[in-house]
């Protein structure tokens, strides 16, 4: 039970930290923000990897493998598409032309 309390600490403080960081993201980057948090939440990959590689029983292994695939799509796809978007954001050059 004490672990649950510890984890709740992490969750709550992490939430506040997240709020403070995300509040500073300008609206123009809100779509990249969503795809970035998406890529980062692909961290559930670390849980999926253990389930897929533990060799507990066939069903768990299958579930784990599907989970690994789904999480990897988010990680790889998420980081790539975020970068593709961020590359497009350009500043006005000195002549005032785009």
């Amino acid at each position, binding site marked *: 039970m004490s672990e649950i309390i510890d984890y709740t600490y992490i969750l709550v403080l992490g939430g506040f930290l997240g709020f403070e960081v995300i509040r500073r993201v300008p609206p123009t980057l809100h779509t990249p923000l969503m795809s970035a948090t*998406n890529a*980062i939440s692909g961290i559930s*990959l670390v849980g999926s990897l253990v389930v897929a590689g533990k060799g507990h029983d066939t069903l768990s292994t299958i579930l784990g493998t599907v989970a690994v695939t789904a999480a990897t799509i988010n990680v790889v796809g998420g980081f790539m598409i975020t970068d593709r978007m961020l590359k497009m954001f350009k500043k006005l050059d000195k002549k005032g032309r785009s």
Partner: protein
Amino acid sequence: MTEHVLDLIYLASSVLFVFGLKGLSSPESARRGMNLAAVGMLFAVIGTLLRKEIITFEWIVIGLTAGSVIGALMAIFMPMTAMPQRIAISHAFGALAATLVGIAKYIEHGNDLGSGLMSAIGFEVFFGALTITGSFMAFCKLQELVKGAPITYKFQNVTNISLFIVTFAIFIYLIFDPTAQPLFYLMLGLSLAIGVLMVLPIGGADMPVIVSLLNSYAGLAASATGFAIDNKVLIICGALDGTSGFFLSILMSRAMNRSFANVLFGAVGAVRSDAAAQTGEAKTVVRYTAEDAAYILERAQSVIIVPGYGLAVAQAQHALQELANILMSHGATVRYAVHPVAGRMPGHMNVLLAEANVPYDLLLEMEEINEDFQNTDVALVIGANDVINPAARYKKDGPLYGMPILNVDQARTVMVVKRSLGAGFAGEDNELFYDKKTMMLFGDAKKMVMELVQTLKA
């Protein structure tokens, strides 16, 4: 590798993720930030692969390869207009991973689950499952695989809320009696159903809210996974994702003037059905041609462009930027006013314009630019309607009342490019279209903008 070393690696990853999100506070630092976050992810994955519990790698390699290929292909070939769909489907993938891990954990522990672990797994599966189907439905609606319009029926809210309560009750029961296996799978099934039912009544214009909200749910499910598998980095990332989605859904609901309770229960869109019955008295609209508009634009000192989703539908972004460049070369100041719900998700319009090479410093938020309309020669509205409707300011019984709008009506001349006189999503007639200073330019946005470009060049 010892547990402690792994924990330190996860800590390093968490720190890198926070730096990554911090980078997003400006477009200049954003790419570097995301690279740091990607390094953090790499650390976490390698660290995990070295865990001694992992004894077989064949399935892991299959999953990693398949996921990388699918993810990369989606990232490379997906058009930017499809961004909301992609985000929606990726929430489904994220929630799927969380849910499956939860189910596997439940199977593995069999009957010796403590109530602490069971509440984590239960929450994970409950929220995960409804996010899977909810996001998938949102994806189908955005991709137009199912009708985008709200699907409503009698007692919809009552049904949804009761279903939610029943599922929640099962969840609570399971905490006290984790051995009740059939109930666990019943909860899973009901949650999947709730996801579908929740998104059915949501219409296209409400998608920004629901997509953000599902982002938050996916984060919560990931956090719960962290509780269930003793993994702190998962809890932190879930918290970041959850607050981010929560924050964005508040912003979006504010921009659309919806109460937050309304959003939380997914009842958005339901209020709309009765609003469409607006009948316009015989008001007359003056049609103008591209030549008329070009004549005015050529002489304008200051122009504010107001893009709406219609612009993206017509794929007119590139033509529009060409027009902006011509106007700027005539010495006019040209800026874009972006309403928070101009696209189908938060910040969508900014990405679409960035793709069309519009520099981001020309894109201004509503608060930054609203005061400037009164000193502006021309407000050029393309494919937007509700976000400029003055009825939002005074018409107390109207569906738009209270929604923050762009003060387009204060500009000296208003030009509106629109396909027809049809009302916007909210079904409210727009009086601005009948105003004497408004020039209505009927036609496809792309064709009309290209005509303007041709005329100005000639």
